[in-house]
């Protein structure tokens, strides 16, 4: 495994079903993300992007291949090499398209809960949650219920929660799908900022080509295979 890598995957393969019903969702997916790097993962629906993301997120292990996070080998095929739940709690942040937040907690508590689950004392967790919300520009909504937040505010709170335990990796699955272009761009720029400031490797699955300039590297996934794309100007000109 290389130095300063946030994520390294080798030859990931995911097979659903068996025999006549066998479907290969991901095949030989190899990827590295450095700390502080933000990469976009493009691809049509059914290409295997979510399968890849959930495999890297340690919630849907691959059938074969290896995953290392922060230079720590965590999965060898479906076999866990660490306590996955604890590892997720300490090293991975998640942001998804919608339903990101726990509805019976307010904005601050949604961030605070991630900190407390990781062992932070309630008072310190509360303070850090407020700091993160302030950093993401939603401090004034800290005590609001999730239903009182706009889509953009909800995503900011989700990003704050993802950052709470200073993870090595942030995984985002179409985080701007429910947002208008202005809000979408703001969120993508947030990823870029937090990745650079906090040194996390960020993978964003997106269909939003208007924000591709934010990413350091762009990958495309098709038929379960990941490949690095041409420079951004080429990508944009062909779309």
């Amino acid at each position, binding site marked *: 495994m290389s130095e300063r890598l946030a994520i390294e995957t080798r030859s990931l393969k995911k097979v659903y079903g068996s025999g006549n019903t066998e479907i290969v969702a991901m095949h030989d997916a190899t990827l590295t993300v450095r700390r502080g790097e933000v990469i976009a993962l493009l691809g049509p629906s059914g290409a295997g992007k*979510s399968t890849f993301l*959930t495999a890297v*997120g340690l*919630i*849907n292990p691959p059938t074969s291949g290896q995953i290392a996070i922060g230079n720590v080998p965590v999965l060898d095929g479906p076999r866990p090499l660490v306590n996955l*739940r*604890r*590892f*997720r*709690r*300490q090293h991975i942040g*998640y942001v*998804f*398209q*919608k*339903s*990101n*937040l*726990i*509805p*019976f*907690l307010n904005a601050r*508590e949604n961030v*605070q*809960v*991630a900190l*407390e*689950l*990781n062992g932070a004392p*309630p008072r310190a*967790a509360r303070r850090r949650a407020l700091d993160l919300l302030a950093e993401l520009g939603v401090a004034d909504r800290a005590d609001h*219920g999730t239903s009182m937040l706009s889509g953009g505010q909800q995503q900011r709170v989700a990003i704050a*929660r993802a950052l709470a335990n200073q993870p090595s990796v942030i995984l985002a*699955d179409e985080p701007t799908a429910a947002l208008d272009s202005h809000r979408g761009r703001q969120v993508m720029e947030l990823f870029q900022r937090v990745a650079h400031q906090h040194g996390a490797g960020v993978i964003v699955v997106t269909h939003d080509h208007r924000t591709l300039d934010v990413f350091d590297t762009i990958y495309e996934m098709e038929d379960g295979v990941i490949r690095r794309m041409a420079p951004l100007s080429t990508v944009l000109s062909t779309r």
Partner: protein
Amino acid sequence: MNLAAKDIQHNFGRFALTALGIGMLLMIVMGMGGIYRGLIEDATLLVDRIGADLWIVQRDTRGPFAEISRVPRSLVYRALAVPGVESAREFLFHTIQRQHHGKPLRMSVLGLSWPLDKGEWLPLVAGRPLAQNHFEMVADTSLGLRLGEQIALGKDLFTIVGITTGMVSSGGDGMAFVTVWDAQAIQFDMPGEAIRLERAARERRSQTQDVFLSQPALGEQLARPTAELPGITAPQLSAVVVQVAHAADSARVAAVMAAWDDISVFTRSGQEDLLVQGMVDKARRQLGMFRVLLTAIATIVMALILYTLTLDKLHSIALLKLIGAPNRVILGLILQQALVLGSVGYGIAYVVGQQLFPRFPRRVVLTNPDLVQLAVIVLVISVLASLVGIWKALRVEPNEALMG
């Protein structure tokens, strides 16, 4: 951060209604236990209050409460003659149902052994004990009679001179206390027409039987009132209650009396056992079955509600697992809600029960051991009820959080 408390706060209305429903169910369970305790207390109340050491009743009967017992008045004097007996009193007990102010009035009449017993031992809340040997009555408040009110029983009019509280028979009927003479008059009251018919029948028999034909004076005797006829026994008592002297041995006194062939003797605890085991046992078992059923229903309802509450939270639970919440956090969330639901339900049951139970027609007695027992049962059923929800929650996969 207490996730269970946050979820309850978020769904407060639904949680409150659910707790109220559980509380009502538990109140019924609590009430059933209270009714049983009330039955026991009512059954043994009179025996306790009278405080007799020995009860002399008709041979081979379980009287005077569990079944009818008839003993002669002279038994009082026989009992007094036994060494060690401090006092012996007449005891008459029967239940009647009459119309009063157009409504049925059911009462258990207890005859006091005037003048030895004027009812000084009764728990009076108004008025006084009996002051004359006829036509006065001390009534329990549950009968709804007022002080000074008059009530016609048999051919006599009784004035209420005292009001007691909590004096009910094992059947739950309010008690009325009169002298033994009055109690007998009420019990053996016959309409005038029945008396005339009886006399006519006697006269008719006197015209056909040789003994009356040969002794005409005997036939003339038959026209006199029944109570004056030497051949007809006087009205009998239900029992004789005996107080044993402090220095005497109750068992020895009882053994002497038990040798008499016409009576049976019970100690106070023996009499209480007869009442509890004979009269209350079926009711106890009946109520016990209902309590078990209601507890099972409360458990099922709680389990269903907790399961539904868990289903509503599956996405949140998946999200919690996704961000690394250990199973004990998820388990704690559901278990704590179950325990809060059970505890709040129990509290509601107790508070509402305290207001409602005194309005019940029969006494509902909540004792501390019963309340503690029910509290433990509620804790157990809360844990049991949470198991289905916990099972469901632990099966949720974290990637279900991604499904929106």
